[in-house]
């Protein structure tokens, strides 16, 4: 029988630290800053996809804000009654889950054409995520350079064996929120982990300290106002939604890379596109087109469905959310005892030859 407590007892099968032996191995084996497979696409066609415009993101931002204000106001109005629950459920998802994709898109600078709009959204969404905007920018850059390369990628969400219980607790932010707050606390006094120093240039650290202090000061004001008014309502609106509203994020986000190959140089093998209905794509700003995003990070979220159509002949056939989890969950359970097990993505007939990378050349 599978021991579900095993993830709490086991150490990861490999050393996922960015400063440990796997880093050196990755460098030696030529997996670092390597050349990745990219589906050939006509430059004129690609230019249509990468073109920047403000319109779609302004529209979606206004809708998002309107929904946040409406559901938040409803929650406040009905506070103290059961009627507040559905409002806060919706508000929480719009805050705790949606802010992740807004953070991501503005980090890439692809949401808007106008630069200050991207920068402003990035700061706002980082705050909502309880993430240091400086550190996470550099973390994500590394994730794009060395996606799921062990010893290099700081954003491997499901290390082997998968920490099933911790992931379950995280559906309501029970590990991520305290961890994020502690990280802000560390950063605010100039303390950074070895991993953070590995991917963040030294010159950026003072800005990271300042950002952490500003974020903590705002959270401090929220806590003070809770005491002054004798209610947790302010925290229900700012801060706590990152916990009670984050549950949908791992459901849509973990499949981005979970259960797939490590140490390959082909996003078709280590990333996963899933098909989602429109409301979920709005919440997730099309980040379900994850293979496409990694292959062509210049393409804005609103052009990803069109890019998907243009390159799907070369990529694994995507599944819906339920079908994806039906395939993924048993694999994660099996990885608890068999850490060499993973899903081998199947490429369609006629697709470009997979780039397994130097370690897995078949």
């Amino acid at each position: 029988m599978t021991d579900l407590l095993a993830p709490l007892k086991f150490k990861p099968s490999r050393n996922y630290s960015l400063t440990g032996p796997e880093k050196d191995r990755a460098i030696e084996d030529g997996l670092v800053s390597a050349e990745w497979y990219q589906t050939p696409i006509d430059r004129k066609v690609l230019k249509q996809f990468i073109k920047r415009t403000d319109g779609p993101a302004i529209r979606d931002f206004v809708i998002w804000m309107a929904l946040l204000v409406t559901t938040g106001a409803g929650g406040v109005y009905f506070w103290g009654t059961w009627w507040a629950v559905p409002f806060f459920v919706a508000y929480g998802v719009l805050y705790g889950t949606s802010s992740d994709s807004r953070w991501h898109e503005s980090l890439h600078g692809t949401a808007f054409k106008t630069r200050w709009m991207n920068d402003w959204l990035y700061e706002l969404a980082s705050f909502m995520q309880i993430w240091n905007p400086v550190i996470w920018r550099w973390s994500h850059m590394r994730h794009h350079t060395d996606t799921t390369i062990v010893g290099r990628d700081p954003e491997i969400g499901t290390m082997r064996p998968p920490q099933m219980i911790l992931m379950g607790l995280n559906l309501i932010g029970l590990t991520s929120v305290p961890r994020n707050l502690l990280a802000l606390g560390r950063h605010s006094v100039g303390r950074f982990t070895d991993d953070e120093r590995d991917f963040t240039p030294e010159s950026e650290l003072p800005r990271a300290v300042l950002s952490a202090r500003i974020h903590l000061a705002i959270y401090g004001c929220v806590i003070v106002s809770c005491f002054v008014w004798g209610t947790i309502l302010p925290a229900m609106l700012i801060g706590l939604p990152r916990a009670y509203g984050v549950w949908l994020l791992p459901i849509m986000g973990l499949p981005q890379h979970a259960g797939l190959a490590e140490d390959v140089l082909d996003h078709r093998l280590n990333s996963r596109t899933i098909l989602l209905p429109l409301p979920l794509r709005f919440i997730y700003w099309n980040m379900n087109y994850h293979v496409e995003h990694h292959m062509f990070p210049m393409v804005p979220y609103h052009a990803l469905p069109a890019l998907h159509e243009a390159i799907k002949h070369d990529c694994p056939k995507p599944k819906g959310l339920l079908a994806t989890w039906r395939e993924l969950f048993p694999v994660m359970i099996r990885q608890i005892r068999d850490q060499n097990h993973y899903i081998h993505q199947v490429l369609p007939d006629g697709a470009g030859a997979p780039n397994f990378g130097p370690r897995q050349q078949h």
Partner: protein
Amino acid sequence: MPWIEAISADDIDRDDVMRWDYGGRTYAIYRTEDDEFFASDGLCTHEKVHLADGLLMDYEIECPKHNGRFDIRDGSARRAPVCEALRTYPVKVDVGMIYVELPD
């Protein structure tokens, strides 16, 4: 500092960038919407990715890998993660051909 004949101006669309390899090095040649031409080193200073695969927006080239940006007029770094400036080169157009002035 010799002027080297690079490519025909007609080879690049307006508002686009093109790769040009010469003497074992790679360069990027830009043509703006207003029909101005510029040239720079072809590889991003962040992680050596070809800028010719990037997106030209006015006077800024966006790198295709991490969306870092440079000003093509002077090579200055305009958006993280690029921190180091890009080397630029003088360009002239003569009878439809683009010439780039490269160091000896």
